[in-house]
């Protein structure tokens, strides 16, 4: 019985690694987009 618990733990680890991993990546993508937008609008105002 014990060794099946290993699979349960593995499943939850995979779930959290997947969700947190994507959350972090999404945060980076969001910040990068925000930075590029600020640059572009500064460019826009100068032109």
């Amino acid at each position, binding site marked *: 019985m014990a060794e099946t618990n290993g*699979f349960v733990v593995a499943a939850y680890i995979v779930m959290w690694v997947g969700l947190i991993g994507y959350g972090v990546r999404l945060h980076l993508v969001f910040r990068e987009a925000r930075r590029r937008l600020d640059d572009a609008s500064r460019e826009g105002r100068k032109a």
Partner: protein
Amino acid sequence: MSHARPLEMERLSTAVAKERSIEWLGAIALLALIGAQLAGVLNSPPDRDMGHLQKIMYVHVPSAWNAFIAFFVVAIASLLYLWKGKEQYDLVAASAAEVGTLFTGLTLVLGSIWGRPTWGVWWTWDPRLTSTAVLFLVFVGYLALRSFVEDADRRAQWSAAVGLLGALNVPIVYMSVKWWRTLHQMQSNPSTVDPEYVIGLRTNGIAVLLLLIYFIVKRYRAARMERLSEHLAESAALEGRRA
């Protein structure tokens, strides 16, 4: 249906300006997920022979449900884009497709983690699992198409068509795989379904749904800002034409 590019720009920039933070939704979703998982894990009785394996279902099934929800969003957004031609719908479809592919991937991995101790094999040609794998490939194709096409209009039109046809095929794929499997092997159904277990599934499903919404909205907003900065770069060039 040519849409006036500058109009799109105004529409996008007002939307970005009015943006209210949704980090609260992310936080709530996270808490809900932790709560739902704890509730599910702590009070679900260990099954006679399956032991705690059943607990894997609390992450596997909600992932599958939400993957299908995400692809439903892709289909609706694609339909709206083809009909209305507004860029926002294309950006929603792209965001939902990305998040949907994440959850489909999770569903497949969790499914095989569940399969290994239960059937002794990492992969079973179980109808639901197989259909999810096909759906995963359909949307890998969708994302590949989007990455291969630069022109925004062409990318939006083409991915809308591919997204719609992909969604149209989901029920047919599921039916064909289901019949194909029942021909060859009694279909495996998870252990007895007592109400306790179903409630656990549903609460986890809703928690993951909150997270899905948060992810899609956040990815959409990032995509919208990317698109807006492209527009701003264009209009800068536009203004510069007299120079």
